[in-house]
């Protein structure tokens, strides 16, 4: 990819106008950290979103409104009751890249190793896209395939509503890499709500080991409404593993990542269950 022109609009309306006027070659620029992954000499016109705002994290009813231009380092530094994305941010490759990458860039185009799609699926986030009118898409719809299909010319992702992890709820995030800076072989995020020893509700998401992030619906169905049981989870995992299409690479086989899933997903469920019981959220 080659940038042949660069614009830095000062407001959302101007950015949308430029993206529409400049046509198919125009692309939004956020942290630009994905460009080294895009091979080829395709010529593009960059519309830098750095000055249009949408870079704060604010408390809202039942959660947080995170601007799409908030940096991963800002998510890492944020502390508030019910806020858990700092833990996801901390696992994100390295500090200089966290200082550059935005939440919006991480979820507008999904690479297998991207951390936030998995976490936001588990947390049941809502994504807002500014177009002719603002559209709000629940995570289940937004992440059901590459998000590009939700964007028309001139559309810009502006914010994400992240529900807080409240009383009786827990969250856990797992990321498996060969070394800390390597790309993920598997990521898993679990949100659950607990009542005594019973799992009242759960959202379990998996990434990296599968072509695109998805929810482990068979495991969710098996555990919701049931008393927490490691055996129940292990049984459901086997059915889920058999039902999924897995990703492999030169560095790992399908069998290997399935084995990682057997280890990490139950671990994450256990951590979230404990957290929902009053420990760390």
């Amino acid at each position: 990819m080659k940038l042949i022109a660069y614009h830095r609009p000062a407001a959302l309306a101007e950015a949308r106008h430029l993206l529409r006027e400049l046509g198919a070659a125009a692309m939004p620029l956020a942290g630009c950290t994905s460009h080294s992954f895009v091979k080829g000499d395709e010529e593009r016109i960059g519309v830098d979103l750095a000055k249009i705002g949408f870079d704060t994290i604010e408390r809202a009813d039942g959660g947080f409104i995170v601007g799409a231009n908030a940096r991963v380092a800002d998510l890492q530094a944020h502390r508030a009751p019910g806020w858990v994305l700092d833990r996801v941010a901390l696992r994100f490759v390295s500090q200089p890249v966290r200082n550059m990458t935005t939440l919006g860039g991480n979820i507008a185009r999904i690479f297998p190793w991207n951390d936030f799609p998995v976490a936001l699926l588990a947390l049941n986030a809502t994504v807002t896209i500014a177009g002719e009118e603002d559209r709000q898409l629940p995570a289940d719809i937004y992440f059901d395939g590459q998000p590009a299909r939700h964007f028309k010319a001139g559309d810009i992702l502006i914010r994400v509503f992240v529900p807080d992890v409240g009383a009786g709820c827990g969250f856990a995030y797992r990321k498996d890499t060969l070394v800390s800076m390597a790309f993920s072989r598997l990521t898993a995020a679990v949100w659950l709500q607990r009542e005594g020893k019973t799992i009242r509700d759960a959202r379990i998401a998996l990434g990296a080991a599968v072509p695109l992030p998805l929810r482990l619906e068979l495991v969710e169905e098996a555990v919701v409404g049931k008393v927490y049981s490691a055996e129940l989870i292990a049984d459901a995992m086997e059915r889920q593993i058999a039902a999924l299409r897995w990703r492999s690479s030169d560095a790992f086989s399908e069998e290997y990542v399935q084995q990682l899933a057997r280890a990490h997903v139950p671990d994450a469920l256990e951590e979230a269950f404990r957290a929902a019981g009053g420990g760390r959220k």
Partner: protein
Amino acid sequence: MNIAFTLNGKPQELTISPNEKLTEALRRLGVYSVKTGCNEGACGSCVVNVNGRAVKSCLMYAAQVDGGCVETVEFIGSLDNPHPIQSALVEEGAVQCGFCMGGLIMSAKAVFDKNPSPTDEELAIHLDGHLCRCTGYEKIQSALRKVSSGAAS
């Protein structure tokens, strides 16, 4: 296109191509401490501070620093008047070929500018992303621990 920014405390104007990376622009300006290692965001040898934050200049377009403030290791100390981070690295024998050091020192500086006494864990979090092929990491760690404890000259 033309950009204007502050480079190491001085105003700087430069004509760039939109596709030019900050690493390339800085070398054109004679800032040779900024090394291109992997050129894909993995090694940290190209790290500079932009508006106080450590960033990988091989991933950043020069256009993105228009109006901003860029600092490289040339700015923070010299042979005659080294920064305490530089002194500590030398005293602890943490430097061999020096290829990684420009970037690593800038990441460390960004940490110490915010918090003069970071813990080992905080240092590890901020310096993950810097590969050093020569020294191993223990001497780097003990040098930075020295700065954190105020024992560096």
